[in-house]
């Protein structure tokens, strides 16, 4: 029987997978508390909350959702570089379905009026969302088939869609930035129910994924595929099918993130939506304490990882850090967190 000395408790806490990512987030907030006056000020307007902390959670929501899907992919020992491009594809599909007329070069006055009408949508709202997500899942399945059934290394297989995906998104929208005037679509990212809707979506996705992986055997299967794909196969697991499912789910997450991102700026911008976010998502997963080599994973860690990065960014905006120093400082923060995961540094 273990005795609960303070040392043991400390060891339990610091040994936890979540410890370092959580400690990083807390120390950034401590820094803000000391150096930025009113950083934590929260205003109440019409019963809704506004403040920097809310902003952090809200702006991090896309990366949080990408990171949830990415965690599972990385847990199987893979990686998905295409999520940014899939975001752009899902946003483009949604925009096109709501407003196909923008493709025309010249518009009659009647269609012009229709486009600017906030209650007008070509396809009903529900089918827009479903179609965008289905297309995203198909993108994920494509990755999964290449990785699992054709044995193409994940980095190469998903790189294909990363490059071509943005091109596909541009083809869908004919290279036009489509402004979205349909009001209900903008609610996805801009509706406040005390706190903004994207935060609820992140929470929902986190709980859903946690339930699917931890309350069923799926999580264990994923970890075992990542730890040793061949021995999983010999113990009777269909490791290819599990990989396929995981990539499809990652595609689904990217689809949700794409809808949030385009709703946030009320525009479908095939060029910029999700640009480089695949890297942010991978970084969030790593900051969260997951190993790139696969195996055991923590979903909450990845979400905290995403928050750490967004908190760093918003803190810098508030501090008034000069524009050309922002990236370097962000890099330093990430390096600092990552270093703590290194065994050598920890034992030092």
């Amino acid at each position, binding site marked *: 029987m273990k005795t609960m000395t303070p040392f043991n408790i400390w060891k339990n806490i610091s040994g936890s997978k979540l410890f370092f990512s959580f400690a990083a987030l807390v120390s950034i907030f401590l820094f803000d508390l000391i150096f930025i006056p009113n950083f934590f000020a929260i205003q109440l307007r019409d019963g809704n909350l506004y403040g*920097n902390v809310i902003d952090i959670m809200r702006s991090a929501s896309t990366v949080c959702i990408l990171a949830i899907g990415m965690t599972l992919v990385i847990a199987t020992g893979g990686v998905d570089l295409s999520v940014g491009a899939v975001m752009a594809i899902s946003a483009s599909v949604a925009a096109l379905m709501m407003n196909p007329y923008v493709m025309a070069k010249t518009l009659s006055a009647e269609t012009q009026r229709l486009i600017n009408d906030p209650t007008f949508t070509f396809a009903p709202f529900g089918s827009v969302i479903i179609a965008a997500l289905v297309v995203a899942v198909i993108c994920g399945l494509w990755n999964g088939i290449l990785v699992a059934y054709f044995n193409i290394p994940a980095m190469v297989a998903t790189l294909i869609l990363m490059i071509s995906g943005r091109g596909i998104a541009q083809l869908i929208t004919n290279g036009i930035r489509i402004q979205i005037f349909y009001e209900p679509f903008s609610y996805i990212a801009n509706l406040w129910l005390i706190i903004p809707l994207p935060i609820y979506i992140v929470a929902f996705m986190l709980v859903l994924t946690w339930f699917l992986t931890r309350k069923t055997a799926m999580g264990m299967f994923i970890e075992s595929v990542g730890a040793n794909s061949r021995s999983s196969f010999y113990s009777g697991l269909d490791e290819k099918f599990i990989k396929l499912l995981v990539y499809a789910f990652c595609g689904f997450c990217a689809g949700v993130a794409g809808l949030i*991102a385009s709703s946030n*700026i009320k*525009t479908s911008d095939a060029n910029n939506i999700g640009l480089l976010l695949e890297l942010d998502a991978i970084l969030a997963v790593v900051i969260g304490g997951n190993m790139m080599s696969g195996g055991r994973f923590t979903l909450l860690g990845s979400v905290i990882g995403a928050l750490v990065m967004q908190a760093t960014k*918003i803190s810098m*905006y508030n501090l008034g850090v000069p524009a050309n120093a922002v990236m370097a400082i962000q890099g330093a923060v990430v390096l600092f967190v990552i270093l703590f995961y290194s065994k050598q540094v920890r034992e030092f």
Partner: protein
Amino acid sequence: MTKKFFTIVLILLFIVPFTAFVGCGHETRGVKCSPHCTYNDMVVGFIQTGSEGGWRTANTASFKETAQQLGINLNFYDAQNKLENQVSAFRNFIADPKVNVIILAALETTGWEDVLKEAKVAGKIVVLEDRRIDAAENLYAIYIGSDFTEEGRKAGREMITLLNDSTKKNVVELVGNVGSSAAKDRGTGFREAIDGSGIVITESQTANWSATEGKDVMAAFLKKSKDIQAVFAQNDEMGMGAALAIKEAGLKPGVDIKIITVDGTAGAFKGMIAGEINTVIECNPLLAPQVYEAALKALNGDALPKWVPSHEGVFYQKDAEAILPTRKY
């Protein structure tokens, strides 16, 4: 057997273009029609960078459509954002005896001296559009592109007029990609113009040309202080993102906080019609008419300045509705 065959094919593949190039390189050919060339005599090789966004699409469309209207024979080449593609396309155009004008939107500023010399020997007219390069001025005919500093100055002057009646003049700046020449020069020009006007730049932060980041950065600025009278966004997207953040903070963009953006995309015009954006400084991608005209002059042996800034205007809210249908991008 097959191996040998492949070797021969490979050797031929290397030698043939080389001889073709050497063959043309040494005979200097003047243009026959000079000095009375017309657009119909022009055979243009146009080397575009590759696709990157609305501006570039409009730029390409401008060259294609104008060529059709003027009766110019245009050979369009898309370099897919790869420098080696641009260089090899350049050499192909030099080797092509029919091509007499080469128009280049260079991906990189350096490394063009050799091909430019080859072009000069072959008697081709080289016109640079949009992107300036570091090369001796006698190697190309003319450069036509935006004057980013002047765009910044125009924005500064418009800002002074906008804030004329305001007692407080706090302006925040949304910067493009750090290090890009457009971001640097627009910032410099803006500061030059507002010098001594009482306008204070209280915040300046990069939003990487993107609407999402423009919204995030503006939201953070507004949390810090609501004492902001205007935003200078170095492109339309960031400005539109800022407008959304201002709305969320319970203020009216364009009224409580004025917004000036640079570019002049259709989205910004819609923003002006909605009253959320005050003034837009044009960064014109429709350079083709100017470029073709300059190329024709060069063909006829007229003297040209080395740099002609593209025609760019300033757009105001009151004219937005009338101008929007004419905007091509």
